[in-house]
């Protein structure tokens, strides 16, 4: 029986190194709580957790030794290209940017107006046109949100 080869994903190593750096940052912040290490204080548990994060992120980085890179990737620049292709596809980037704009827009327009524009824009984009039906679905969604959250649940909306 052949052992299944574990593959390292494009960008995985960099991400795991970032986690190690993050753990060091958490350890520094945890150490600053008591300005030292004590067994029973406000900072003792955070220091312990930071050390666990640090140890496990080192173990994660070491585990890469057992994994192999995709045989089609030969250089760091090639890996970077694969990473960009996998995680920064146009429809993911568009969703991310429009989502951020939506959250900013909520503050200076009303929730309902910004939500309607966000939903309509995303529906039209993802459904490749179909403007009328997208506008109808967005309007219906707004009506359901109004009934459900403003009338039934009576929650505060932005």
């Amino acid at each position, binding site marked *: 029986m052949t052992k299944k080869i574990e593959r390292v994903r494009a960008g995985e190593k960099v991400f795991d190194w970032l986690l190690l750096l993050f753990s060091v940052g958490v350890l520094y*912040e945890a150490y600053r709580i008591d300005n030292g290490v004590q067994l029973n204080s406000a900072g003792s548990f955070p220091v312990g957790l930071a050390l666990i994060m640090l140890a496990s992120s080192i173990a994660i980085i070491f585990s890469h030794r057992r994994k192999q890179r995709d045989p089609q990737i030969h250089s760091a620049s090639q890996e970077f290209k694969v990473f960009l292709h996998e995680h920064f596809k146009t429809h993911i980037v568009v969703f991310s940017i429009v989502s951020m704009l939506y959250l900013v827009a909520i503050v200076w327009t009303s929730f309902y107006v910004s939500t309607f524009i*966000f939903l309509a824009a995303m529906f039209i984009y993802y459904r490749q046109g179909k403007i009328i039906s997208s506008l109808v679905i967005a309007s219906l969604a707004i009506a359901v949100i109004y009934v459900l959250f403003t009338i039934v649940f009576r929650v505060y909306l932005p």
Partner: protein
Amino acid sequence: MSDTFSYLLMAWLDPGLLGLTALGVIAGIYIGAIPGLSVTMAVSILISFTFSWDINNALALMVGIYVGGVYGGSRTAILLNIPGAPSAVTTAFDGYPLAQKGEAGKAIGLSTVMSVIGGLIGVAVLAATAPHLADLALKFAPRDYFLIAVMGLLLVSSLSGKSLARGIFSVALGATIGLVGMDMVTAQPRLTMGSMELLGGIHYVVVMIGLFGVAEAFYQLHNMAKVPVKQNVDKIVPPLNMVLKFLPLSLRTSIIGVVVGALPGTGGDIASLFAYDHAKRTVKNPEVPFGEGAYEGLVAPETANNAAVGGAYVPMLTLGMPGDAVTAVIIGALVIHGLNPGPMLMIETPYIFWFTVGNLALANIFLLIFGLTGIKLFSKIVEVPKAIMIPLILVLCVVGTYSLNSSMTEVYWMLGFGILGYWLKMFGFQMGPIILGVILGPLLDESYRQAMSSVGDSSTDFLLALVINPLSLVLTSVIVLVLLGNTPLKSWLYSRFKRS
């Protein structure tokens, strides 16, 4: 005794509670079935809408969603080979081959009946064991709570993913997030990076919505183009002789489900894996081989994952420790309503326990009714395109987060956790351990400091107490065994044992 019965039947006799439970079960079946929506996501968002409600109403809706959702994942696993929930992954192994043979209706019907059997057994075990366990838990010392929490987090780290190191990192990250803010004992700021806004801490619901809602929405963007294969389904009520034939297996896997579900931090997904493995090892001559449409391969995981629901409530209601990610969220709901999950719950508010037991049983009855009807409508609804679903998930996450404290800062945090969750998920980290860490982190911190204070801050006495006290010794041994089980020592011992 009469009080117990009135609490037990409260949800059955109150039309409002009856309606909310039914609504929850229906919603749960669809939420569990639609890939991209999860029960944890739904319950997390629901907390923020229901915190002004009466606790019984809020719990009735959440229990309904939980029970319906665990079952709902099996529907799409059978029909489309896309498990709607992690606990239904094993269901797809034999469920989808059955559907391909034109037996989708029978498979759905059988999985419904078996889910209900498993669910009811889980509730019976909860009712029978939890009061005794709560009495016992009153005698637990802080170090025992500390050890149980460590054991739960270690179990979830080792069982929830392929890598123990990633699991432990996730749990520690979650616990660190849970500790951000002002220390409750000394009022010192912890991990706030000098920010005044972080002094109040990060609300766990914000983290949950981000990790389970936004992260999942981003993750689903990768599979936008995936078109599921449709199946024709007509009659789904299974014949009685078929149910009786698989009843012994169902009873055995129910016990597996309850036990695994009751281990803090595990849940239906792990229970269903154990049950499937048990069925494979014990059913010697199935009519069809496992993986090619064996009904045994459908019955085992479906019974176990629903039995795990009752099991997951045991540590939650008796120790204040979540059995799985959903009960972690429900603990949050109880705390928001001013309740105290743990052994004191049985003394201070026993009605909550008996109400939950009665409500879980009722939800299983509704599951039987709704599970065996409305399949045509179901087939239409699960086909909601992702193009419509994903933007709507984001809007729901925004509404859910904002309604907590009317704070846009928390909405931005939620988005931040969503993006972090997406990257973690892409590189093999699980979201469940992070959430359990967020919930259990402060509890761990508190019990550790109490335990240390009780031995005069002496590390030697603390370590000694772990082996002198019988309960602490058992828990310490389990922790050591789990740790050793994840080292090369396990395979070395196994090979030595095999040779001898």
